[in-house]
């Protein structure tokens, strides 16, 4: 029996070994490396090993850091609100109002296909809509709603958040739909039989039972937005910043130690947020 017991661990590790190898080399070691380099020093063209807290001191001593972190949370929160609202409504429609399974699957696939296409192209594709002479402005002007083109449609916080919602709402739709499909339909009937209105059923039965899906969607959306740098750079026309952009700016100036220090703080922040969210959901149970 003890032989068998030993075997279980050995075979487990054997089968997981390729996974362990990849994650050690390309996830754990890079994180350790970033942590080490965050204490190094830099000249204008090179970096040198050291053990100094200058990078962190500079980071925490600068107003820019706090503003940029605030901006990052702001983007994450606003995007989350919209993704949740839109994602929940779409998933609710699919799960409870579409009656045939074939249609459910087909419409669900329509929601997920953009996920498998290029994010950069999807960002670029907003330009003809939002630009000064874009579709939105020309339509609004032809309706007489506005007299001059709106300047804040493209290269603003508005376009950044619009792009985030556009890119990431399906990360809400998929887990919420998945959880909703597993809700026992007799519970809905029971609620109706007991005289609950549609809204009451939605609020007191469906929403509580959908919470795990909402949490998983939230984890995706929040981490993707907090770790982003390219959407903010592209959609704000380099006018707004979040933490990711702070890091990528340092990288382009070859200031790897200071980029690493910012990266460490960002990683800790993201993991804290995820740690809090994971208290509300057991991911392994929800798969």
């Amino acid at each position, binding site marked *: 029996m003890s032989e068998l017991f030993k075997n279980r661990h050995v075979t487990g590790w054997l089968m997981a070994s390729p996974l362990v190898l990849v994650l050690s080399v390309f996830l754990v070691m890079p994180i350790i490396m970033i942590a080490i380099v965050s204490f190094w020093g830099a000249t204008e063209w090179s970096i040198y090993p050291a053990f100094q807290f200058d990078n962190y001191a500079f980071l925490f001593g600068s107003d820019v850091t706090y503003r940029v972190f605030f901006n990052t949370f702001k983007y994450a929160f606003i995007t989350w609100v919209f993704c949740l609202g839109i994602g929940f409504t779409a998933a609710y429609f699919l799960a409870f109002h579409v009656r045939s399974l074939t249609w459910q699957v087909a419409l669900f696939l329509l929601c997920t296909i953009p996920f498998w296409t290029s994010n950069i192209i999807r960002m670029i594709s907003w330009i003809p809509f939002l630009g000064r002479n874009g579709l939105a402005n020309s339509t609004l002007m032809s309706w007489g709603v506005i007299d001059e083109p709106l300047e804040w449609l493209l290269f603003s916080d508005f376009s950044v958040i619009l792009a985030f919602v556009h890119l990431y709402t399906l990360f809400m739709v998929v887990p919420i739909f998945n959880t909703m499909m597993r809700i026992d339909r007799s519970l809905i009937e029971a609620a109706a039989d007991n005289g609950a209105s549609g809204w009451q059923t939605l609020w007191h039965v469906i929403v509580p039972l959908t919470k795990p899906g909402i949490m998983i969607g939230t984890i995706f959306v929040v981490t993707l937005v907090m770790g982003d740098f390219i959407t903010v750079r*592209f959609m704000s026309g380099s006018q707004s910043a979040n933490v990711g952009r702070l890091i990528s700016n340092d990288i382009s100036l070859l200031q790897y130690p200071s980029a690493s220090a910012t990266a460490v703080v960002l990683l800790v922040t993201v993991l804290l947020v995820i740690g809090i969210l994971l208290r509300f959901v057991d991911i392994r149970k929800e798969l």
Partner: protein
Amino acid sequence: MEPRPRSFYILAAFFALFLLFLYGPTLTIAVLSFQGPEGGLTFPMRGVSLHWFRDLFQEQAVGDIWGAFRRSLVLGLMVMVTTVVVSVLGGLAFRKRFQGSAILFYLIITALVIPSILVSLGVGLIFSQGGLKVHWATSGFGSQLTWTLPFGLLIMFAVFNRFDRSYEEAARDLGASPWQTIRHVVLPIIAPSLIGVALFGFTLSYDEFARTLLTAGSYNTLPLEIFGMTTNVTTPVIFALGTLTTLFSFAIIGVFLVMAWIIGRRRKRAGSDAGKGMI
């Protein structure tokens, strides 16, 4: 069937708007990529032509996009195969709890939530400090795996959570060795979900930007090339490229979906011998 409530029509309209929001911009650039030679990045259309598509095939106009496409394609296939193999093995490993499996699980979650630029930065630093050259097929390949593997593994976890173990027991009772059980019973049953894993592996790699930014080296992958174009190309040629690569993605997704559908149908037809008696 009861009549549809009014809320159905409101929600259906909402859903239609959502789909329009998802696909509208992509369709717009598809239309704009047929701009005439004088046309710009926005409407109105100044004539209809294939001018910008033709431009794509002239190296000097757009740089090395075909080389970039080839590299992205090869890299996507490499990542796809690796993701499928490693995810299946990982999924099998996680069916039984082993010492340290909880830590490994949290590591997978970390790979999923870590800001992508950290992977790029960290891998780039390791290679530069180790005196190695970054290359899309080594450092780029590994960096992309940290993004595709968590998805592959989550799919495998979901599959094995729903897996009926009595099939395996039956195989064992009939004298199958552990390897035979996996080869002839487990793998055929999970085969359709492997198509899903492969789809994730290929498309996520093909479109990945941030993780390859500092790890691809001197030869760009297609998303890097496209991003480079956004800063210096101001003609609809970028829409033409966007349209082509989106069409390519759709074609890939289509192939995978059709494969999954065919396997499902074959299984329905030939998978069960129930009711056929012992003749």
